[in-house]
């Protein structure tokens, strides 16, 4: 039917289209596009936010490597990727493998609702919640005491060695539900006959996972990785509320450094360089992960 209908009207160039696109595009250009270019411009200057600015060349970028505080912040972001992305994706995959044939179980929607709940809660609320959980009398120490491990109870967010993993585990908690929901809905799309016939052929659970479940999950895995890796790199709210980058700068991350330098310590140029590199990292990693996606979609 569609093939017979004349498509001329759709093919014709319509200049009026620009009027439809204009409001959105103007907003986008004024509040995102132009400032984005300015961020790049700022990064080549020294500026304290008030007085005149001076040309700094690539010094702000060199500092990303030479300044240990900045270097550490990117290392911390790398460690957070492990907690935010690697832990939940691997764990959720393992769980999905175990329950892959249960994806169509009754009551699934209730589990999905509960698993997904942390995603809709403001990160500030999540952060204050976990501050209490990690506090000296909080849930973590309560559990440790309950199993007789009083000796290792501590103020988790206050220790140099424990603060970053503690922040990271909040990310793991956030990620696991998201990944499980994504993977289980991916598995629910697999024809049950595939599992039936694999079983008839005597495939074990491992073969079944590798040859049926995993290939079907390539798309959802790419999505889960993109979301969680980007969330790890962008981490700001959690750090701001739980530790303010401390103790010392044990939990400082690029987004926090950019904010702090731009608005507290008068190093706007340096903040710009951090922001540019962070943005490029996010774009590159996203494009790289998208390559995992199966090409034949669409």
């Amino acid at each position: 039917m569609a093939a017979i209908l004349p498509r001329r009207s759709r093919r014709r160039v319509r200049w009026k289209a620009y009027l439809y696109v204009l409001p959105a595009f103007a907003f986008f250009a004024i509040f995102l596009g132009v400032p984005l270019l300015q961020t790049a411009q700022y990064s080549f200057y020294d500026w304290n936010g008030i007085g005149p600015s001076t040309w700094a060349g690539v010094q702000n970028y060199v500092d990303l490597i030479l300044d240990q505080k900045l270097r550490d912040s990117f290392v911390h972001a790398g460690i957070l990727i492990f907690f935010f992305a690697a832990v939940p994706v691997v764990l959720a995959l393992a769980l999905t493998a175990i329950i892959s044939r249960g994806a169509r179980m009754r009551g699934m929607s209730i589990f999905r609702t509960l698993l997904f709940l942390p995603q809709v809660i403001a990160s500030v609320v999540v952060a204050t919640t976990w501050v209490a959980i990690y506090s000296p009398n909080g849930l973590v120490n309560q559990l440790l005491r309950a199993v007789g491990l009083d000796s290792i109870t501590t103020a988790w967010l206050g220790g140099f060695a424990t603060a970053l993993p503690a922040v990271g585990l909040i990310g793991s908690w956030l990620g696991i539900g998201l990944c499980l929901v994504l993977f289980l809905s991916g598995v629910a799309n697999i024809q049950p006959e595939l599992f039936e016939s694999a079983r008839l052929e005597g495939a074990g659970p491992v073969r079944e996972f590798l040859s049926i479940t995993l290939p079907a999950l390539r798309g959802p895995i790419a999505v889960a990785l993109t979301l969680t890796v980007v969330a790890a790199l962008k981490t700001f709210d959690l750090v701001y509320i739980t530790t303010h980058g401390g103790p010392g700068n044990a939990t400082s991350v690029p987004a926090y450094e950019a904010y702090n330098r731009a608005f507290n310590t008068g190093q706007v140029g340096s903040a710009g360089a951090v922001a540019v590199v962070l943005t490029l990292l996010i774009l590159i990693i996203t494009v790289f992960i998208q390559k995992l996606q199966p090409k034949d979609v669409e």
Partner: protein
Amino acid sequence: MRIRRREMAFNYTVLIIFSAIAVIPLLGVLLSAVTPKGDPQGGFQLPSGLDLGNFVEAWNRGHFSTYMTSSALVTISVVVLTTIMSTLAGFAFARMDFPGKNALFFMLLAGLLLPAEAFIIPLYYNLRSAGITDTYWALILPQTAQSLAFGVFWMRNQFRTFPHEIMEAGRLDGASDWKLLWKVIVPPSIPAISTMCLLVAMWTWNEFLIPLIMVSSENLRTAPLGLAFFQGQHITDYSLLAAAGVIVALPIVLLYIFLQRRFISGMVNGISSR
């Protein structure tokens, strides 16, 4: 048959454990929020009684009525602006041909990936020069721009799947593009549009960085920003903070409970099809 039943029981156990992990911290907040003053604080325990006083105290001491009003105003404004502009642009991208269409769309799409850090620093100084920092505009306009990338993308995908025949029929009746959009295409697309509104509302309500940077007056603070300051003042008063946290999270959680299918499918599909 026996194996299948054992397998089922096992599946349920795994799901119950992980649902519990997702929910227990949140349940802890609820319990903590209704814990009477004298009880030990900070941990996970059943309160000795039900005390709603923390909510009253948090609401009054923390000026949450002001913050919630700010958040509501900003969220509604962002949702309305985003919906109108996304519908218009989504229609053009889905149904019209014009030079530069792909380049423009690609630029918008790149906006989906941009972290706020990429533009927020100069944006603050630009808006300060324009004299609109520390006003609602400084909250509404940038967040609308941020939501548009997703909104346009979402509406374009929606309108692209709209049956071609119905549009042609409308066009044969002599309807203009404008009429076609609002009279023929938008009405049956209301479910998709409202899903987009929900997601944009959630992101705007929960946003922290933009309010943190853009406003300094207390009466303009949004709920998450107000909570952050409140936390700074009552650092170990966990029950009070829990009550405040419940107040901040409640509007979106209520929406989620009633419309969870829409939230989940919206987020899963919206992000997956990118």
